[in-house]
């Protein structure tokens, strides 16, 4: 039948047409198109994965920051506490030193006072002794101006000795 008999001419031209199409489209259309699509797919994929990585990096950085912040806070607290301790320590030490020094000075002052006092007393005693001797001398001189009295005294003394 005519319908199912391939005509040689049409087969020939169809082959040529198809061949040309296959060659030109294959070389100048399909290959660049598919390459471009592939390229774009790859770039989209890599962009997505990069975005994902960036997100992860971001999260990592945030948590790291938080850690750092926490650490810094802890360090600050530690430093403050240490400073406070140091301050307390210094103050108490100063107090103690002041106390000790004060006591020592007081002690020294007392010693000095005692010394001065003793000196003064010794001086006073000497003067009193000198004065007493002078007075006694004067009294004795007055007493023994007359003979009578001297005799009486000797008598008294003798009497006393006898009694003993």
């Amino acid at each position, binding site marked *: 039948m005519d319908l199912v008999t391939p005509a040689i*001419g049409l087969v020939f031209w169809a082959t040529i047409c198809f061949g040309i199409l296959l060659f030109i*489209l294959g070389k100048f259309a*399909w290959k660049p198109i598919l390459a471009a*699509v592939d390229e774009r797919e790859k770039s989209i994929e890599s962009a997505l994965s990069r975005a994902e990585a960036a997100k992860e990096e971001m999260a990592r950085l945030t948590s790291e920051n938080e850690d750092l912040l926490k650490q810094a806070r802890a360090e600050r607290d530690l430093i403050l506490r240490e400073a406070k301790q140091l301050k307390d320590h210094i103050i108490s030490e100063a107090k103690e030193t002041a106390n000790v020094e004060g006591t020592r000075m007081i002690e020294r002052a007392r010693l000095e006072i005692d010394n001065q006092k003793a000196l003064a007393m010794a001086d006073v005693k000497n003067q009193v002794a000198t004065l007493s001797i002078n007075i006694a001398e004067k009294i004795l001189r007055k007493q023994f101006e007359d003979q009578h009295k001297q005799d009486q005294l000797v008598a008294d003394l003798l009497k006393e000795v006898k009694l003993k």
Partner: protein
Amino acid sequence: MNLKLFRISLICAFFLLASIFPKSGFSQENAPGGKEKKFDPTTVIMEHIGDSHFWPFTFPFVKEKLIPLPVILYTDKGLEIFSSGHLMDGATYQGSYHSYKLEENKIKVVDASGNIDTTVRALDFSITRNVISMMLTAALLLIVFLNVSAAYRKREGKAPKGLQSFMEPLVLFVRDDIALPNLGAKYPKYMSLLLTIFFFILINNLFGIIPFFPGSYNLTGNIAVTAMLAVVILFTVNLNANKHYWKHIFMPNPWWLFPIMIPVEIVSIFSKPIALMIRLFANITAGHIVILSLISLIFIFQSLAIAPVSIIFVVFMDMIELLVAFLQAYIFTLLSALFIGMAIEEHH
């Protein structure tokens, strides 16, 4: 009220009218001197789905013209090239070597007395209606896809735009739904072939549905074209086949099946492309025949009253044909990919 709706209905009306009026062959029925000839749907339909040496310029509301096409004959004495206009209306043309005449749309060599001379062999390589239409669609394909390709170069790495964004899903469809599942990792080697086959069939299917110039031909429903495509697939499959494929054919298991299996397998080598060839041919031709038959109803009944019925059915069929145009392009490409995939598949 709604301009858009109005415009759409206007376009629909235009296409409806277009599908009734100037189907090639209908006009010639009332042509000779107003004498009513008996309408013969078989001739009309066969003329339409067959090939022709004239390019019918059919357009709504324009009287059909037959554009003569070049006739190229390879005779025993040499090449003969002349315009088919010389053969119009059964005229005999005296070429450089022989005389020629159109007999049932075929060029025959005639002797001096006008009788067909079967002793002289003349191979017909004419640019027929199908050939010129095919060249037109091939040119269209080249323009479209070279443009699209240029768009990819120009807008490198950017989102597709315009024609590019219209074609990209189709190209990706062929790649992701036809080539990749069937061919696996080796798919890039066959992409050119599959894409070319897909778009070649698709555009010719679609142009075949258009009822007026430059469409309204039946190229993918022509056995010569489907045979050519099938042969391409036959060669692609068998030239790329690996040793597992040939082992499967020539060394079936167990050995005592050799006498049965080897002939069966050899037949299967050819039956696959033949099935491809017949499927496309039959589907497209059948669609055209159904549409033309429905249109012919009006002329068979010779009544305008039947026209609305015909039109409704034709619109319905046109929708189905639109689906079939895509479907057959898809199926042909899919099965091609499947056959190639079976031949290059690695067994472990």
